[in-house]
């Protein structure tokens, strides 16, 4: 693989992380509103700080790639994409702020978000869990437990779950669903 190709792959990787994080923040912000859940709203605020760091790293990476004059526009486009992810993240933080200001969510908001969620739970994936190294598709968590994975926290990262996201030891699964499913999920993640 050429040096050039490698460089672009790194840029795309960072961009996808920015994009996914900003979209995860929106999902979590709506969930925090729906469930009137402070913890989720705080997660969104925490992610906003993380976004700042990601965004700076992304910009530095783009700016430090050696590009020719005729490529400048294409790189400007990339910089602008980065700026937009930050704007989306800000909007998500504003939504979460409603919860943190203890504004009682108006029934309209619940009706708008329309999901059958009741509770949020955090479970750590322990060494003896059968979930380890499985993708979310393989793990079939909603089918097994009735809980829906909203996010996967891994170190200081937070990952937006996709069907082929792999579960690792030490991951914290943030999930929502009916209260009955909580125990089942705990048994699955930390038996």
């Amino acid at each position, binding site marked *: 693989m050429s040096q050039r*190709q490698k460089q*672009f*792959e790194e*840029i*795309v990787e960072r*961009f*996808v992380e920015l*994009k996914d994080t900003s*979209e995860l923040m*929106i999902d979590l912000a*709506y969930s925090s*509103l729906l469930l009137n859940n402070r913890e989720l709203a705080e997660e969104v605020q925490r992610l906003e700080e993380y976004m700042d760091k990601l965004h700076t790293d992304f910009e530095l990476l783009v700016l430090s790639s050696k590009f020719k004059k005729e*490529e400048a*526009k*294409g*790189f*400007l*486009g*990339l910089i*602008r*994409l980065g*700026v*937009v992810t930050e*704007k*989306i993240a*800000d*909007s*998500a933080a*504003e*939504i979460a*702020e*409603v919860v943190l200001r203890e*504004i*009682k*969510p*108006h029934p*309209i*908001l619940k*009706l*708008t*978000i*329309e999901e059958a969620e009741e509770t949020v739970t955090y479970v750590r994936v322990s060494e003896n869990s059968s979930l380890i190294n499985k993708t979310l598709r393989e793990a079939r968590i909603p089918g097994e437990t009735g809980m829906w994975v909203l996010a996967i926290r891994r170190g200081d990262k937070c990952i937006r779950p996709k069907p082929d996201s792999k579960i690792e030891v030490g991951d914290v699964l943030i999930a929502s669903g009916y209260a009955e499913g909580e125990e089942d999920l705990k048994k699955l993640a930390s038996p």
Partner: protein
Amino acid sequence: MPRFEKIEYKPIPVRELLLEMKNLSELMIDLAYSSALFNDKELAEDVLELEGRVDTLAYLLEMETMIAARDAEDAEALIGVSEVASAVDKISDAAADIAAIVTQNIGVHPIVGEIFEKVEERLTRAKVDEGSILVGNYIGELGLAARMGVDIIAIRRNKDWVINPKETEQIQSSDILIARGAPSGIKEFKELAEGKRQKLED
């Protein structure tokens, strides 16, 4: 200079307004990234048009909440709704910013799109030809997801948009379909819609 339409009050429930704003903003973000990464001007134009629509909805929603608030208690109850609506509006603005990268001919480096396509699904836009075998079919009957891994996420019909169309939605001639899927499925889907392929493979 963009043209700004005059907005007159219409009695539409706040819930409906906010729900439509939320759905549109989500669709716009998806459309906008695809437009920028694959340098698709038509998708970008769609995003800008939808942006205008979200703006109109935001005005109507604000009027609705003003009318609903009679006292301090009402105002406290409604401020959350109005804050969320303004955040949703901002998300749609962000999508328009992405589309502007395309419409202002700045563009994103083409290699980025090529690499991106390996990790993420892309969106496509296809106009249904009158000779297409899709015409008259219900989305549910076609089984596009099972056959080719493609999902229709929106339909543009004249000036109207159907977001997240139901299985019972019937495809009509001249509909513009927005679909998501893997590159091979997307290609097949586009050919079906444009009447260049006359058979649904299993």
